[in-house]
């Protein structure tokens, strides 16, 4: 599966900032580190700010800081700000869903959605940061 661009930007920004919550990092630095558009990142950071996960630091230097809780914020908390991981569970329907074949397909897709929800919902930012440090 693939995550949408905005979601990936958000996760990269959160991981970069949460690695050291005392450090201020500019949007430009984050954009350069991950090869993402500064314009795009700015919109993402505004969304993260409204969710209370990052805050803009005023004054000389400026930049952003992680303002969430690394242990309690999960990947799902971030992802859910930008996309719907469980559209079928939420009742979003597509053409053909009312047919027997459509319903059978929905059951299979719901299995995948449930696994995705459990996976994203069980990995905190702190756990992701530990994963970054593990040799692959």
């Amino acid at each position, binding site marked *: 599966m693939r995550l949408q661009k905005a979601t990936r930007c958000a996760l990269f920004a959160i991981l970069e900032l949460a690695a050291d919550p005392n450090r201020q990092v500019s949007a430009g630095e984050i954009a350069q580190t991950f090869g993402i558009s500064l314009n795009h990142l700015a919109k993402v950071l505004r969304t993260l700010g409204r969710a209370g996960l990052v805050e803009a630091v005023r004054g000389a230097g400026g930049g952003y800081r992680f303002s969430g809780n690394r242990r309690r914020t999960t990947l799902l908390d971030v992802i859910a700000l930008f996309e719907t991981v469980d559209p079928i569970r939420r009742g979003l329907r597509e053409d053909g869903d009312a047919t027997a074949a459509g319903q059978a397909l929905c059951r299979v897709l719901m299995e995948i959605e449930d*696994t995705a929800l*459990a996976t994203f919902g*069980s990995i*905190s930012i702190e756990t992701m940061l*530990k994963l970054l440090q593990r040799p692959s």
Partner: protein
Amino acid sequence: MNDHDESQQFYAIRPAGPADVPQVILLDAELTGLAKPEYWASVFARHSGPGSHFLAAVEGERLLGFIIGEIRAWEFGSPPCGWVFAIGIAAGHRQQGVGRALFEAVCARFKTDGVATVRTMLARDNALVMSFFRSQGMMAGPFVQLERDL
């Protein structure tokens, strides 16, 4: 809520003994809402003694948590590996390193017994315990649990 932090190890990890079983029953009942005295008595009977992996975290004689593991071989085609099939930490003692210490202790025992992998299984909606195991570096393994109604 106890104000110990993770840097202070105020507890000991040791093999569970008969005197721990009543506290295990109480703790499990608090966590699951269901008291299972016969179940835990039989679990203790199976997993006590030399080579057992039923460990308790205690502060004095007060149980703060427990973990139970065993080596299983060739089930579902899997070479021998260590399985953690129960863990419980008292609500007032979470986020203090007790769960991690128990998990590391049982993993150390598994390594000594010659296995290189630790596994567990849990309900998909058990977010608290799943988050804990993930924080200990566990990721989804190559097996899938399937089921149907009979």
